[in-house]
């Protein structure tokens, strides 16, 4: 038998997808809360790049500053949000576009539900196998 089925790469990647969706949700909330703040600039994640980097194993670990340190296991590097280019800047130097944010909000929720359902299905399959298909 190959690798442990509970930790297969697809589940890992789906997990990362959910993680990134939640981070993106926080950024959309931030953009919406600051829709009237002068000088605020829209922030977002480069979702595809973050997901690719996560699957290619861009990992960070705790620095061992002393040879006797045990160190930590690898962890995924946190996503880096960036300002979104190409949005119209209003007179108060704010560039939050409420239509863009509401669309992001809707698609983000849908995508999260989709992937969450996939993961749930994956675990249902496992459970069914554990219970001899009952």
């Amino acid at each position, binding site marked *: 038998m190959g690798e442990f089925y509970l930790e297969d790469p697809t589940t890992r990647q789906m997990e990362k997808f959910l993680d990134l969706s*939640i981070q993106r*949700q926080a950024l959309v*909330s931030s953009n919406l*809360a600051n829709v*009237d703040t*002068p000088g*605020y600039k829209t*922030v977002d994640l480069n979702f595809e790049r973050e997901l690719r980097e996560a699957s290619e194993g861009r990992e960070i670990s705790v620095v061992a500053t002393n040879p006797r340190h045990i160190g930590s296991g690898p962890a995924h590097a946190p996503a880096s949000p960036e300002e979104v280019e190409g949005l119209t800047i209003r007179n108060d130097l704010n560039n939050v576009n*409420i239509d863009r944010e509401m669309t992001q909000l809707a698609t983000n929720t849908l995508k999260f539900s989709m992937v969450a359902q996939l993961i749930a299905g994956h*675990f249902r399959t496992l459970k069914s196998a554990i219970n001899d298909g009952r």
Partner: protein
Amino acid sequence: MSLLSALDISAMGLTAQRRRIEVISSNLANANTTRTAEGGPYRRRDLVFEATSPPDPFSAALNTEIEGQAEQGVEVTGIYQDDSAFIRRYEPAHPDADAQGYVLLPNVSPVEEMVNLLSATRSFEANTQSINAIKQIAQKSLEIGR
């Protein structure tokens, strides 16, 4: 951690917009007030919004350390008085009229206030939508283990 901080941020957005609505109400209620504690007619008030870190100081500090520029909440950091000129209206019978019979009325423009009120209401609704989306996401993630 991120979902809860997203909720906090939306809550900050709701609070800020509600304060804005309160100030607009005060402006509209005092559109004809000619006497105030500091003397003279009522001056139109407005708010200063500022992007700040989420309320939890620990996670805010952690976020800034590891992620650099992260999600930001919003806070009302000041109320200022609009120093534009008062409206002068000829009303010689008014007790606050000057020698020429003119009364100084507040620099409140009902049209401007109504536009701001609509804008604040819509922004409030946008934050509510955001909270609903977060609730949906949380609900969905609870279904994973079923």
